[in-house]
């Protein structure tokens, strides 16, 4: 049986990991509810943002500028993907659209491999200084930055949804896309914006974890997948669910790896996904809709 401070250590690591999953799940849930597309390339946005920031930083740019430029670049890639790959196939079935986003994900990963190679890239931690001691467990200062990012993103998203016209349009689209269209809301424009926003959110998440995990061209696949698990776990039509699902998955993974075996860390997420899909496909906080999934 592990000691108390070891358990506490797991708790902090799990929450950090969970914060990242929550961010990715948030972007996925947003895109899914606006467009009906499960974006399998979301993880690739994370990798792209992180790697771009690494390159800019190595080129000698100030850290803050690197962050904003990398987010902008990835947001542009997100928009480009929507215009080039998603929009031309807007009338296709959800299954065709998933296959298209898988194609996007494969292409972006290959592109990242061509540009950045297989070596891991790194960024320095945002603040200097050793880890903080909390009740005998070490908390990385970068973890605090990641929590901060989650809080800011959620607050920003909330303000956008509740306070702006476009936020209202998005909410209308989530409730009923056809009705929203009849009210003069352009779903294709919203879909475009959703991909730009998920590119930006993915990039921000990628840059914030790079000091902890390093950035590689293939980091996106697993992160994107974990984002899905988190989104499904929390309930795919629920923004709050994405956050709860993300933290829950992070904790499950770290405790599973710490208490059972680290080799099966990725399997934990898959088991959770299958279990949720079979037992409660609408997720923990999901609304029960009439439509079967």
């Amino acid at each position, binding site marked *: 049986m592990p000691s108390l401070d070891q358990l506490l250590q797991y708790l902090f690591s799990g929450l950090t990991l969970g914060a990242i999953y929550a961010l990715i799940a948030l972007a996925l849930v947003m895109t899914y509810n606006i467009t009906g597309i499960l974006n399998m390339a979301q993880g690739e946005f994370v990798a792209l943002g992180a790697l771009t920031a690494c390159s800019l930083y190595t080129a000698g740019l100030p850290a803050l500028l690197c962050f904003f430029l990398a987010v902008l670049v990835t947001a542009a890639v997100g928009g480009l993907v929507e215009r080039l790959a998603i929009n031309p196939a807007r009338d296709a079935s959800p299954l065709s659209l998933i296959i298209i986003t*898988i194609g996007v994900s494969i292409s972006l*990963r290959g592109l990242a491999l061509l540009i950045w190679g297989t070596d891991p890239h790194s960024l320095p931690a945002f603040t200097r200084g050793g880890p903080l001691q909390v009740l005998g467990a070490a908390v990385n200062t970068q973890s605090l930055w990641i929590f901060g990012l989650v809080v800011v993103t959620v607050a920003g998203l909330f303000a956008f949804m509740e306070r702006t016209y476009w936020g209202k349009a998005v909410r209308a689209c989530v409730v009923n896309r056809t009705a929203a269209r009849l009210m003069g809301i352009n779903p294709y424009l919203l879909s475009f914006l959703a991909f730009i926003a998920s590119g930006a959110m993915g990039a921000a998440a990628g840059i914030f974890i790079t000091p902890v995990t390093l950035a590689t061209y293939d980091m996106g696949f697993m992160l994107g997948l974990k984002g899905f698990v988190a989104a499904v776990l929390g309930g795919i039509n629920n923004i709050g669910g994405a956050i709860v699902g993300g933290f829950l998955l992070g904790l499950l993974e770290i405790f599973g790896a710490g208490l059972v075996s680290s080799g099966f860390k990725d399997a934990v997420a898959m088991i959770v996904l299958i279990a949720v899909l079979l037992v409660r496909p609408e997720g923990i906080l999901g609304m029960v809709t009439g439509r079967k999934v």
Partner: protein
Amino acid sequence: MKSALAVIFGLVFLALPFFVKSNYFLSIFIVIGIYTLVVEGLGILMGYAGQVSFGQAAFFGIGGYAVAILTTRFHWGTVTALVAAMVLPAVVAALIGRPTLKLREVYLALATLAFGLLVHTFFNEGRELTGGPSGMTGIPYLAFGDLVFNRDFKFFYLVWALVLLVFLGVRNLGRSRVGRAMRAIRESELAAEANGIDTSLIKLQAFIFSAFLAGLAGGVYAYYVTFISPSPFGFHMSIQFVLMAVIGGLGTIWGPVLGVGLVVALSEVLKWLIPKLLPSAGGEYQIVFFGIILILVMIFKPEGLSHGWRRKAPAAEEGAGRLKATAT
């Protein structure tokens, strides 16, 4: 006329090992045959029954590992091990199929994907049984009595004989009551159910059949390379199978061969071409092209390439509606 062409084509194909002396080309044809077995099964599942599986490489792997483990660790006969390689994935599919196939569209895609990754993790981590990441060596050659498949040209005939059998089976299935029921489910599950079709049973049968074929292919693959490791059975292979099925065209007999042939040929050409164009590139950079092709096919020809030259107008229309029809 058409059948005469087919016969001539078949004869030329069968004579291939006599004038293709290069083992490289022969091995490519063998690989195409093996993948075709998997993709025919996936084609039944996707093109006929309208369900998707992003975990087909798992069944392929279970078949391969069944042969590897049973022959080397338990000293089973090679033929009985091959039978086990077909039965085991089918049993697994039967067990997971019922709850999984209740899910629709994106949820089914995610569940099968998760299943594939789970099985792949097991191949990597179940060291005592699977040999872990470094895999297992020393798989014996497949032998029917005195006939030992220890040379590439023998394997060529074995694999393509199996493909031919599967062709005939798929053709007959397409014309049977079950095949019609599958197509009805693809067009509208609700309408199929209203017409008295046991949709969950038919979907399960399609799933089991696809797992059975993938397992057969995996077993043959293990006997062909006589070595097994987890890497060919991961997510990218599952995606590649879907890619092959979609590019070739769903709901046809020839689509899978066409899709597999194109993807394998393209992958070999790129392996040769890219180092000349971009000498610094390393790794699986050719996936860029697969991604782009997948996107282009899904945008411009979602019914697949084999629908192109035959029965143009009605086939294209019907085919285009195919993936769409599963949406509603």
